[in-house]
């Protein structure tokens, strides 16, 4: 299958493709539903891979290059699978002023991963958020969807270790 192949039906037998198809149908398979459709893919599968982009491209009649362009333009979309657990450190202005950088440095150092990376065992992904909007609780981090506010670096590492099932 060449890169340019456009898929006319979902890439796999997975039933979850129906969810994405519903999103596209609700938008009449119009090209302007591209971002919505990619949101739907990411929400369902956690990331965007080439087969899924190919299928969306075919269904919405948008060139694959444009789909790829959109998928890589927006920070919200990720083309790599995430780790089992996710730690998001907020680097909004309020968090930065109150020491968000130290939190990030510590997590990077401790787990040996840079922002946007996942540990080799696929256990932990480290992400940076622009602002999670909990500025009153700065500095903040989100570990597996749970917002941790006003934490020191040590407290955050303990929380992440705890989530990973490791002893601090």
């Amino acid at each position, binding site marked *: 299958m060449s890169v340019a192949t456009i898929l006319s039906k979902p890439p796999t037998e997975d039933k979850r493709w129906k969810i994405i198809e519903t999103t596209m149908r609700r938008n009449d398979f119009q090209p302007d539903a591209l971002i919505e459709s990619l949101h739907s893919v990411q929400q369902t599968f956690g990331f965007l891979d080439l087969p899924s982009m190919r299928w969306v491209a075919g269904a919405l009649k948008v060139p694959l290059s444009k789909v790829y362009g959109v998928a890589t333009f927006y920070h919200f979309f990720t083309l790599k699978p995430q780790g089992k657990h996710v730690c998001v450190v907020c680097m909004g202005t*309020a968090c*930065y002023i*109150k020491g968000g950088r130290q939190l990030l440095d510590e997590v990077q150092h401790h787990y040996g991963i840079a922002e946007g990376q996942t540990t080799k065992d696929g256990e932990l992904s480290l992400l940076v958020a622009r602002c999670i*909007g*909990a*500025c*009153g609780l700065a500095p903040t981090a989100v570990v597996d969807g749970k917002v941790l506010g006003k934490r020191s670096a040590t407290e955050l590492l303990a929380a992440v270790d705890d989530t990973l099932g490791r002893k601090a």
Partner: protein
Amino acid sequence: MKPEELMTMMDKARADTFAHELRVCTESGCMSLQSDVLQKALSDEVKRRGMSDQVCGKGVGCMGRGCNGPLVKADKAMYQFVKPEHAPAIVEALATQPVKELLCDTQQPFFTRQKLVVRENFGIVDPESLIDCIAHGAYQALLKTVTTMTPQQVIEEISNSGLRGRGGAGFPTGLKWATVSKAGGSTKYVICNGDEGDPGAFMDRSVMEGDPHRVLEGMAIAAYAVGAENGVIYVRAEYPLAVKRLTKAINLARRHELIGHNIFGTKFSFNVELRLGAGAFVCGEETALIASVEGKRGVPRPRPPYPANYGLFGYPTLINNVETYANVAPIINKGAAWFAQIGTEKSKGTKIFALTGKIKNTGLIEVPMGIPLRDIIYDIAGGLPDGKAFKAVQTGGPSGGCIPAELLDITVDYESLAKAGSIMGSGGMIVMDETSNMADVARFFMEFCMTESCGKCIPCRVGTYEMHLLLDRICEKRATPEDLQLLKDLCDMVKQTSLCGLGQSAPNPVLSTLRYFEQEYHTLIAEAQAAREKATHAATSEHIELEVLP
């Protein structure tokens, strides 16, 4: 829905009164402190005591004090730092005296100095209940507009009120509406810009989460005024709760025919769709936002043609910010004259600010325009913690600037802030104390602009990168005096030649810190110079030493 039905619904909802009310903040900030668990604990406690017919429990929008959350309002008492285990005591206290140790003083300046227009129903209505919103007057302004006013009258009313765009630039709203109204063609769009990308700002989120029907109502009135039938709300995907509340509000309004075909039995029809952003700051720029709604990469294009003439899918489009739309209903209800008496001569009404940083009271505040900055910092926000000295306040996010202590007496309005080298922006206000290094702050914002630059025009794409490199050198004490000069030149070049607002305003944080805190840059450069001289000296002496060795 017919006009009478709205009135009946309102009267019926108002007649349903309870002896007591328990309101829990369910805005994102408090939710992250598990206010949903708390809400459940309270309602369980009410049920356990068999008080369900006396106590009305509901989740409400932000009550302001995010740092003291979760907040609970029990009748007149406001409680802070509430935990689920406090539920029995709180329910018990409904009939007697409030629980003293949880009380939050609502007579402190943080609350009394505020003036609520947009947020008047925050903490009062349940944003997920249409009936509750209607009981508190939602959609009355829309009813008044479509049944008693002509589109021309609506535009006049908004123009007379002096309302200006709350997204940052402060363009007169009435003028914008008039331009779209004059544009030809039968298809027009109304867009609500809810892509609040400024780090450190969350006013629009709180409005969408706390009173989504007010935003919808404002959009419908705008659509009626400019002759549009379609509306799009563009929200950041990073705001899942706002997305959920807006979706629910749209569905409820549609089901009760408050939006849709022939609203209130008139000829006016209006449909709204929700579109999600995907994390691109540049999409706050109107032409980039339009591209994003069309499903493309959010890249701005040169203006003119302005969206008012050539916008979404090529049709005339009105774009306003969330807070701007939220101001519309009160203006229609209470009149332009009422609105115009709040604020200063050129900046009318109120503005919501997200107060954060090194300050005692963080949270959301809504203040009349023209309030002195000092009053916000020292009176409302209670000054700085730990006895630290105030250094600067940053307004306007990455497009704004820092205002130093000596300018604390300026008033907060579009003109004064611009004169001080900053902007009103969407309303982020971040306070810094003496420990903050201003060159580092400038580097932080430049890094933001560099990553968020869409890459279309070269001044912004390369300019922000180069400026970030220079700021990095300065902060890491590696810079030379020439670097500073180059930085200044680049600021000027990027400001003058970038295509859109992002690039044009990207140098602002650098320019404003240079304007008031240039000494800090010089200190860092002098330290770099000294380190270099020391290194050269060490190298020379080492060299000599090597020579004398046999």
